[in-house]
Each structure stands twice: as structure tokens, then as C-alpha cells.
């Protein structure tokens, strides 16, 4: 396999990754490259390790083994620089937390604010730097939530909550967007809006990586699909990977796996070659 460190066409490069919860393996032998400026969907059954993969990418979980690099550097450097935006699942957030929509989306700017001088940071964020407020306003406009900016987040509908979380990721103006099930449990108009926003982000040159169960949406929009179930089960175009036969195979893999920890032939990724 060719080494691609420093290669600008690879946004995230995962090598030999193993991750486990309390010695129970969740991800094994993950070798995966996410091409830069493309939109990739990660598809797999529940408990396949998709969220764990994101936990590793966001740094909230340490892998047992393996390396994760972004644009040729350790990914932690990119996290510190605010290049990695993350959109959590709705269930991961305490919605009765006393913050407004505006303050929540401003949270996406907190990483950048660390690089502002200290005396500025002590001022309320609304005034101290117009560029942060501008980024928040743009993000809220993109998800059509500007009118609800002052609303407490607890008073939002399910689709609106998703859009606020998306706006927070957008406000960060990051180069890599990680989205954990951005389309789960949203109404059709919100789903259309979210898919359009993500398409625009890709056009702007950003790398979009999302976990999804929404096959029609993925078929229509994404450039690449990664099938995952503890191991990588396939990497390729939406047409190849989201065929009924492939998805059935993936479902069978999860049944086999839970029945008995079969050793499955290692799948190596060739995404970068295709990208």
C-alpha cells in the first residue's frame, strides 16, 4: 500500500486502528482514507462501531492501536486549530440546558476564540469580534434558523434541534465536517435542507463525512460509501456499495458476527485510489 502522508488529496487517513470498550472489540484493523473535498457516507448496522469511529476522530476515545492523521499531520493538531467540526446525535445533548440557539451555535466558534487575545475573550462574544457573530449569523441563515436565534434550545422541535447542531458545525468553518446521523428523525423539509447545505459545503471544498441510515439520501448525494461492521466491509461508489445485494451481505455479516466471532477476511480500503 502506498503511503499517502502529506498527500493533499487525503483528508483523513486511518491506519491499523483497533478500538475497544472494556476489552470488548468494537473496531478492528481499520485502514481507511477519506478523500479531501468529497462527501463520504459511513453505513453499517447498529453497534457496528460507526459512532466509536467518530469518538476516535473527535478525540473523546483513545484507540488501542493505530494512527489517525488529517492532511498528513496528527489529527489532534487539526482539532486544536479548529479544523474538525463535529455534529452530535440529538440524544447526546441535554436540551434543557439554559442556553439560546445563538449561544449554542456560538459554541462552534469557541475553538477559534482561543487564538484571540485574552483581554478580548473577557468581553461577551456578541460584541468582541464581529467575525464570530458574522459566522454564527451565516450558519443560522444557512439552516433557516436566524429567526429563532434567541429561542431557548429546549423549546425547539426535533428537526430544528438537528438544524441548530448543524449550524454549530457550520459556524466553525472547518475543513472537515463529521456528522453523526444528521438525518435521523428529521421531517422531510429539514432533511432536504440539511442535504442541500451539506452539498454546498462540499462545493466549497470541505470534506464531509457522515454516518447515516438514509439510503435514498446517500444514493443521491454522496461521492463515496464506507460499509463498516467492526471491520471495513467495503469501500466504493454509492451505486456499488448501496446495492441491495451488498446491504444484505452487510446485514448477514452482523448476524454472523453476533452468532459467533468469525474471523472475516480483512478488507483493505482503496478509496484514495478511487478518489
Amino acid at each position, binding site marked *: 500500500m502506498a503511503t499517502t502522508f502529506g498527500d493533499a488529496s487525503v483528508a483523513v487517513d486511518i491506519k491499523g486502528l483497533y478500538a475497544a470498550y*472494556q476489552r470488548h472489540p468494537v473496531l478492528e484493523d481499520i485502514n481507511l482514507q477519506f478523500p479531501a473535498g468529497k462527501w463520504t457516507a459511513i453505513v453499517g448496522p447498529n453497534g457496528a462501531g460507526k459512532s466509536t469511529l467518530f*469518538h476516535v476522530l*473527535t*478525540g*473523546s476515545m483513545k484507540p488501542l492501536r493505530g494512527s489517525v492523521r488529517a492532511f498528513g499531520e496528527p489529527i*489532534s493538531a487539526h*482539532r*486544536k*486549530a*479548529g479544523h*474538525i*467540526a*463535529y455534529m*452530535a446525535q440529538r440524544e*447526546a*445533548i*441535554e436540551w434543557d*440546558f*439554559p*442556553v*439560546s440557539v445563538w*449561544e*449554542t451555535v456560538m*459554541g462552534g466558534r*469557541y*475553538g477559534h*476564540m482561543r487564538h484571540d487575545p485574552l483581554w478580548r*475573550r*473577557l468581553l461577551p*462574544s456578541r460584541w468582541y469580534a464581529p467575525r464570530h457573530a458574522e459566522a454564527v449569523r451565516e450558519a443560522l441563515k444557512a439552516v433557516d434558523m436566524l429567526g429563532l436565534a434567541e429561542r*431557548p434550545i*429546549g*423549546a425547539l422541535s426535533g428537526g430544528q434541534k438537528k438544524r441548530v447542531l448543524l449550524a*454549530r458545525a457550520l459556524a*466553525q468553518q472547518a475543513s472537515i465536517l*463529521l456528522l453523526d446521523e444528521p438525518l435521523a428523525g428529521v421531517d422531510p423539509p429539514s432533511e432536504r435542507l440539511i442535504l442541500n447545505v451539506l452539498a454546498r459545503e462540499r462545493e466549497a471544498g470541505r470534506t464531509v463525512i457522515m454516518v447515516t441510515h438514509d439510503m435514498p439520501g446517500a444514493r443521491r448525494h454522496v461521492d463515496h460509501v464506507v460499509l463498516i461492521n467492526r471491520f471495513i466491509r467495503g469501500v466504493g461508489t454509492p451505486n456499488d456499495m448501496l446495492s441491495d445485494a451488498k446491504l444484505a451481505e452487510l446485514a448477514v455479516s452482523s448476524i454472523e458476527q453476533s452468532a459467533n466471532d468469525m474471523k472475516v477476511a480483512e478488507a483493505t480500503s482503496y478509496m484514495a485510489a478511487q478518489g
Partner: protein
Amino acid sequence: MAELMVALGLFGDAVVSGLIAALMVIVNILPGSISDAFQYAFMQRALLTSVLVGAICGILSCYVVLKRWSLLGDAISHAVLPGVAIAYLLGWPFFIGAFITGALTSVGIGAIERHTRIKSDAAMGLMFTGAFALGIVIISKIASSTHLMHILFGNVLGVQQSALLLTLVASVIALLVVWLAYRPLLLYAFDPQQAQALGFNTSVIHYGLILLLTLTIVASLETVGIILVVAMLITPGATAHLLTDRFKTMMLISVSVGVSSAVIGLWLSVVLDVASGGTIVLVATSWFFVALLFSPKHGVLIRQWRRWRMS
């Protein structure tokens, strides 16, 4: 070095005198039947201590309530006891011992939680009861039961100048940290994974917040005592949570509830000649029930009214 300490001590005394003078200006506006109780020096020290404790407990209370750390606060406050006892044995200032065992216990809880299959509530329960038992055993050997009672339930009327200075320093530190680290703390409380993704060092924030909590508990020891301090770390924040959907407003309300409970409770306890720690907590609890009934958004009455109008 010694001169510096003396100078710092003098400076602290001056600040305390200034703050007491300022408080007395407010107290003297009140009718004589209330302000008379505060003409003694020990009452003035108790008043200032109560105001400070009410304020920092009010601030920390917001994080404790929103982060679901009520049981952790309870655990740390109990774990402080052996530290007080050991410091007494070694002739150290009690707050150093208290701080060490409080912090050690919280680190121990975290370690058990992370590296074994024991869940967090059991980890807390077993660590703090163990520490508390150790404290009881040591104290039963070396001190009188009145001494133990004062640690457990507070003795605000007997607050010495040194304890007051400690409370003042703890308050200043807590205020500064919450102001300087406002955004990381808010983000960590709201969404730790987002904080992590933005490259914040969440372990530092986590243990920083726990140290702040320990500091607050140690500073509140003499006022409400080990057992009741947890009430001051839950009730003001919970009351404020019922009244607002803004974090800054929540902090303001929480501090107001903490300070007013401490002052009113102190006064009531003197007038009625009852235990001050308990009275302070009861006033805070009363505030909570008032908010529970009458909160314009989340109150019981308004909900009933809405339900009645809907049907």
C-alpha cells in the same frame, strides 16, 4: 518570605474590614429590630462569611446541577472529613488536609469508574463512605464530640479571622476561574464531546472543575458544615434552573438565592436561637419550593393553569 506572609495577612485583614464596613452600611439601613443582631464583631464576621459562601456555592451550584454532579458534591464533602482530622493531628491548617483528601477521593472515584466495571454511583458511594468512616474513627480518638459536631454541621458564629480569610481567598479564586474560563467551562458542561473535538483539554477542565468544587466545599465547612454544604451546592442552582433559560441569568439567580439564604438563615438562627447551618439550608429549600410553585415558565401552578385551560 515571613515578611511577605505578614504583609499578605495585613492586607487580607484590611480587605475583610473594608468588606464588613460595606456590609454594615447596608445592614444599618434595615430597621433596628433586624440590624441590632449584627452589632457584635462575631456576628459581622459570620455575616461576611455567609455572604461569601452563599455566593461561591451559588456559582458552583449551576455547574453541579447542570452536570448532574449532585452525588459527586456529596461525596467530596464527606471525603473532606479525614483530611480535617489528619490536619488536626499534624497541626496543619485544616483546609489543607481537607483539600487533599477531597481531591484524592474525587480522583479515586474517577479511576474506579474508568478502569473497572463498577458504575459511577457505586464508585462514589463506596469511596466517600470509606473516607467519611476513616474521618469519624480518627476524630473519635483525638477530639471531643462538640468538635465533630462543628465540622459536621458548621459553626458560623464561631468563625475565626483565619477561616474568614480562607473563605475570602477561595471566593476570589472561584470567581476568577469562572470568569476567565467561562467559555470552556460552559462548553464542557453542555457538550464535552464538542469541547474535545475543538481541541480543548477536557481532562484539565474536568479536574479543574472538581478542584473548584472541593475548594468551595472546604471554604463552606465552617458555615454550614460537611453534611449540609451539598444542599448549598444543589438548591440554589436547581432553584435558578426552574426560573430561567439563560445561563448567565441562572448564575445571577443562583448567587442571589445562595447569598439571601445564607444571610436570612443566619439572622433567623440568631433570633430563634437554633442551629445556623440547618436554618440557612431551610431558607434555601424554601426558595426552591417558592420557585417550584410560582415559576412563570416551569412552575407547578402555571402548568396546572395551562392544563386546566386546555381541557
